């Protein structure tokens, strides 16, 4: 068999080009009720009164809900009412929910609800939130329930703080001869998946709660609805069909609570809530912002000795996953380098901004923007090539990470290998100035990246395999197909292991928490490791059963048997054997006797030896491995008007093993595109009251066709020993270095240090003007 590495077409491809692929909002909905939201026009305000009288008169309106009496929600800190209670804390926060027989009636009624607000001054950045005397977003954070590893500080806007204390900073400073310091900031932005969040909810007569949601975390929906609304877990059934883009934004649970309470308010009738784009941007969780200060010290030869880091994450109005993002940013607070002395304080701060969900890269592209910019400052001060500085300091086996994990060949990829390959490609791909236009300057910027996952230490994944009478296999995994093609990758692994053509593997796309084994959440580039290990275990279980039945039928020992191409046979005499179809539903002897029964393969995997990180030092093992990469961006900058074109974007990623060549390239290139879009174009523009000014795709404008550079992607293959076929997670890594590399390129081209995102021409122009003053 030779299926691993092949560019197998994704299983659902024919459905996706014919309109047959179905997403949450595409299922027939005759008789369904519709819910619409009333959201806050203010970022921070007291709710003085809510007048629903006119809305109630609209025909077909079945219920109008406000926040009173609803339980608080939130994964890390339960600080968030599903509908605002007494106060709104961000623009777009859900205030009322109207349920009606028809969508247009729900919308009409929502428009007739009058909410009287008393605006309060807004906390408009994490730096402002951090200052003493800042308005408090949550007055009594001490009253909230919280996870055991979350440390809010009452009386402040601090929702969480993670400390990294590795080595001895003062010693590191003493050993350093050259220092640089950089300050950086960027605001929140959005995932902008083209499918807006959508959910239907229904409560059956027997109390079963049926939810269908466009989610990366159907099993978390089940768990959270159960715990907040006090319902037995077994009575909650969550389905997730194909998801129309997620990028972390659908890993948070939010709109599902609203759909659930809407259904509950109308006697359990099926209710649909589909977010408008404006709600998807403002009401649903967004992409985190960050203010950062980094001080690096190195020897005169450029050996890094000290890193002193302050990260102030924009945790937004509610904590949800932001303490975790703040923790993940601290865990990998530096680039992929060996630094003996690291001091990092990473804060998650409440502000009056929309609150963040995970975003592809989970705080890594964000901290790497700051860190890799500072590395360029250091290279400049040393007069050293930026690639050489990174090569010299690359983390190697025997070193330790910021959380003091000992590095070996398996748990961290080959940083130096990536840098070397990047250098070669940059030389091959470099296009010098055409020379005609003196206004145009070309420059390349680079960044090195790494990422481990910081997910629950007991996150697990399961797989069930059943066989069909023709000997083909059904693969059921809790991994959600969000576009990454992971389910096809799992099918390839299974085909390889069972030595079957991949066409003989049938993948169940829809996740159903009642019948699909759990996969914790489809996040963190861990589908291939965790889902993959579960597939391998399930395949081994099935193979063992096949051999057991065949050994009986063929009167040979199990260890004398092998499988290939849908047959189980005697190794020494391959012509003696049985086809899978004679075995997988039990074997029947000529006289009618039968043994076995349907073969059901089962496998599960749980991450090994994960630990929470220490509160005081950050020491701990939060994830199984770091995939690494080196990236470059080449720009052509117009010195007259500060516009620029991105000519090329290059990624070299140590992917361990390529499982599906085109799919892997697609993941890396797509992530690069998203990273360049985040770096160059995307942000929320806030007014001084903390209101978002651009909450439509007309004014929030991701990269469009024709604006892309040429993408070059190459892989280095250093196996992660514990992963199936040695593969490393790679759904996010293409994104990680793009903001830093683009900013490094533009800093060189414009001759001024770029310290904010997004890198729009106006920002470059302003930065140049400030430099002149």
């Amino acid at each position, binding site marked *: 068999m030779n299926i691993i590495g092949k560019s197998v077409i994704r299983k659902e491809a024919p459905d996706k080009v014919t309109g047959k692929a179905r997403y949450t909002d595409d299922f027939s909905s005759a008789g369904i009720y519709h819910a619409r939201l009333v959201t806050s026009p203010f970022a921070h305000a007291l709710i003085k009164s809510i007048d629903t009288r006119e809305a109630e008169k609209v025909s077909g309106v079945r219920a109008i809900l406000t926040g009173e009496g609803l339980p608080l929600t939130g994964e890390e800190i339960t600080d968030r009412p599903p509908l605002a209670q007494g106060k709104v804390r961000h623009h777009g926060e859900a205030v009322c929910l109207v349920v009606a027989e028809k969508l247009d009636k729900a919308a009409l009624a929502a428009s007739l609800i009058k909410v009287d607000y008393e605006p309060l001054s807004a906390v408009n950045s994490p730096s402002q939130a951090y200052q003493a005397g800042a308005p408090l977003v949550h007055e009594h954070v001490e009253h909230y329930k919280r996870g055991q590893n979350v440390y809010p500080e009452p009386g402040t806007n601090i929702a969480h703080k993670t400390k990294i204390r590795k080595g001895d900073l003062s010693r590191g400073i003493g050993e350093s001869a050259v220092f640089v310091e950089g300050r950086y900031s960027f605001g929140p932005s959005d995932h902008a998946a083209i499918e807006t969040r959508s959910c239907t909810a229904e409560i059956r007569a027997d109390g079963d709660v049926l939810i269908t949601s466009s989610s990366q975390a159907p099993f978390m929906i089940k768990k959270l609805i159960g715990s907040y609304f006090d319902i037995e877990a077994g009575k909650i059934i969550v389905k997730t069909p194909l998801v129309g883009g997620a990028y972390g934004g659908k890993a948070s649970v939010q709109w599902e609570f609203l759909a659930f309470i809407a259904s509950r308010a109308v006697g359990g009738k099926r209710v649909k809530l589909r977010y408008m784009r404006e709600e998807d941007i403002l009401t649903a969780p967004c992409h985190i912002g960050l203010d950062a200060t980094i001080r690096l010290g190195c020897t005169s030869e450029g050996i890094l000795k000290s890193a002193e880091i302050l990260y102030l994450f924009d945790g937004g109005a509610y904590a949800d996953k932001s303490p975790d993002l703040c923790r993940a940013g601290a865990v990998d607070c530096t680039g992929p380098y060996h630094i003996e002395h690291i001091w990092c304080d990473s804060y998650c701060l409440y502000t009056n901004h929309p609150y963040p969900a995970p975003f592809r890269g989970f705080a890594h592209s964000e901290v790497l923007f700051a860190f890799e910019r500072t590395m360029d400052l250091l290279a400049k001060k040393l007069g050293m090539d930026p690639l050489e500085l990174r090569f010299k300091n690359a983390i190697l086996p025997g070193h330790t990470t910021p959380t003091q994990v000992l590095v070996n060949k398996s748990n961290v990829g080959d940083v130096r290998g990536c840098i070397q390959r990047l250098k070669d490609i940059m030389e091959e791909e470099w296009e010098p100035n055409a020379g005609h236009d003196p206004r145009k300057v070309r420059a390349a910027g680079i960044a090195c990246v790494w990422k481990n996952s910081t997910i629950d230490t007991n996150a697990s994944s399961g797989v069930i395999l059943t066989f069909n009478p023709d000997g083909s296999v059904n693969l059921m995994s809790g991994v959600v197909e969000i576009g990454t*093609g992971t389910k096809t990758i799992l099918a390839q692994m299974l085909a390889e292991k069972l030595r079957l053509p991949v066409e003989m593997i049938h993948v169940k796309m829809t996740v159903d928490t009642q019948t699909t084994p759990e996969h914790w959440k489809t996040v963190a580039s861990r589908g291939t490791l965790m889902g993959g290990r579960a597939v391998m275990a399930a395949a081994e279980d099935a193979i063992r059963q096949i051999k057991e039945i065949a050994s009986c039928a063929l009167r040979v020992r199990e260890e004398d048997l092998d499988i290939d191409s849908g047959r189980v046979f005697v190794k020494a005499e391959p012509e003696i054997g049985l086809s899978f179809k004679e075995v997988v539903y039990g074997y029947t002897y000529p006289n009618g006797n039968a043994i076995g029964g349907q073969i059901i393969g089962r496998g599960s995997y749980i991450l090994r030896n994960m630990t929470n990180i220490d509160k005081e030092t950050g020491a701990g093992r939060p994830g199984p491995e770091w995939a690494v990469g080196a990236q470059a961006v080449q720009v052509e900058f117009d010195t007259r008007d500060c516009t620029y074109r991105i000519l090329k974007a290059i990624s070299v990623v140590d992917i361990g093993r390529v499982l599906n060549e085109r799919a892997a390239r697609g993941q890396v290139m797509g992530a690069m595109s998203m990273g360049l879009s985040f770096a160059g174009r995307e942000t929320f523009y806030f007014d001084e009251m903390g209101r978002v000014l651009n909450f439509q795709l007309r004014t929030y404008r991701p990269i*469009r066709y024709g604006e892309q550079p040429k993408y070059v992607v190459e892989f280095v293959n250093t196996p992660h020993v514990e992963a199936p076929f040695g593969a490393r997670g790679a759904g996010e890594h293409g994104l990680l270095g793009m903001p830093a590399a683009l900013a490094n390129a533009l800093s060189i081209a414009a001759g001024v240090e770029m310290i904010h995102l997004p890198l729009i021409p106006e920002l470059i122009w302003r930065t140049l003007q400030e430099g002149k003053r």
Partner: protein
Amino acid sequence: MPETNKKVLILSVNDEDKDIVFRPADTLLGVLRGKLGLTGAKPGCLNGDCGACTVLVDGIPMKSCIMLAIEAEGHKVTTIEGLINTKTQASFIKHFAFQCGYCTPGFIMVCHSLAEKQPHADKAVIKEWMQSNICRCTSYQEIEEAVASILAEE
């Protein structure tokens, strides 16, 4: 509050005539999805910004979220469900020109129309056509390859 007046409309969709009871305010997208079960055209912004709802009206790409159903009367509407085994569809598969697949019907409709109307389109024209839509998963390089291969065949 008074009920809006429902009307009856005959729409030609994918070469079939359909009788539809509708509200004058209903968009073409709403009718295709809600009344005809043609869910290939997707809601993405309902504001004409993202292109996920693109269908062909008399062969020309239209964002069905900003067109009223009644405006489509007397015209031939083609949705992704009306495309069977076209080169565009095959090319999108071959070039891995989609991931989550949500924007894909819209992109395919634009691309299909482009290939029919302007088979010799140059890069600038292709860009002008394809900029109407947003893909958030791919890098567009894959879509560029898919488009190029379709036009090259024409």
